[in-house]
């Protein structure tokens, strides 16, 4: 939330090609062009009731792969873990005639077109649930026949967040050709 009022989703799309430097005061350059090139143009959407949007539920899920390695003497096994995914799901409903619905659907489509190039990011702020520069993981929109609401489900992944990683343990092994490696020796 901004100022603790409404949840907010921010879509960011890097700008291309390079834009000219903007000057607020003649002779004084700003850093706006650098910011927009690297962080992208932020497009905020306030999930406010006054705009016809109501958050129904939120949930966070983390998937972790845990691989224990047993020991011969039955001692404490060695454990290696790696994060598979961290996804926040936001379920909300929007009035069908809301302009925010149109904007949201358009931005999701735009992000979908940039999935491969990764030229987008999604930020979500709502109380304790905060995601900066997340990735779009899923989106569904269901329209009811007997009401004026459209139910949306947006999934944002934090899989691209920087984590502490162990040193690369993948060793490069050169090839030795021969009937046996000793006879070969090349």
């Amino acid at each position, binding site marked *: 939330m901004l100022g603790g009022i409404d949840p907010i989703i921010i879509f960011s799309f890097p700008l291309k090609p390079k834009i000219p430097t903007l000057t607020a005061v003649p002779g004084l350059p700003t850093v706006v062009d650098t910011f927009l090139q690297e962080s992208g143009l932020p497009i905020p959407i306030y999930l406010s009731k006054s705009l016809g949007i109501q958050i129904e539920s939120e949930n966070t899920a983390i998937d972790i792969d845990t691989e224990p*390695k*047993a*020991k*011969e*003497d039955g*001692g404490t096994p*060695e454990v290696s873990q790696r994060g598979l995914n961290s996804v926040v799901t936001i379920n909300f409903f929007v009035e069908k005639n809301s302009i925010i619905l149109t904007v949201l659907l358009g931005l999701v489509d735009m992000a979908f077109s940039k999935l491969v190039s990764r030229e987008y990011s999604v930020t979500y702020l709502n109380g304790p649930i905060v995601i900066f520069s997340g990735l779009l993981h899923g989106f569904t929109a269901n329209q009811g026949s007997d009401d004026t609401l459209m139910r949306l489900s947006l999934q944002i992944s934090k899989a691209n967040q920087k984590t502490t990683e162990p040193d690369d*343990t*993948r*060793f*490069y*092994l*050169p*090839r*030795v*050709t*021969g*009937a*046996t*490696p*000793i006879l*070969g020796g090349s």
Partner: protein
Amino acid sequence: MDWYNVFSKPEFEALGLVSNTYEVFLEGLGNKDILVTKGNTIAVQFEDEFLPLEFADRNPYQRGDYAVYVDEDENVWVGIEEDT
């Protein structure tokens, strides 16, 4: 046959593990995961082939296109037929 020196047998035994996966980059082949297990004997599982070290007193021990060899320094080599 192309051979790759994957691990040291004494070092693996010193770990005290029942199994260990060696994540390696093999020249000419790329990233591979090699599972080494210890039961009655130490064995290498590579590309779905189970290769016990010095099985039936054969060193190298070959099964299909893959083989395993223990040299005099107790380094374990995994072999792959050149046309595989």
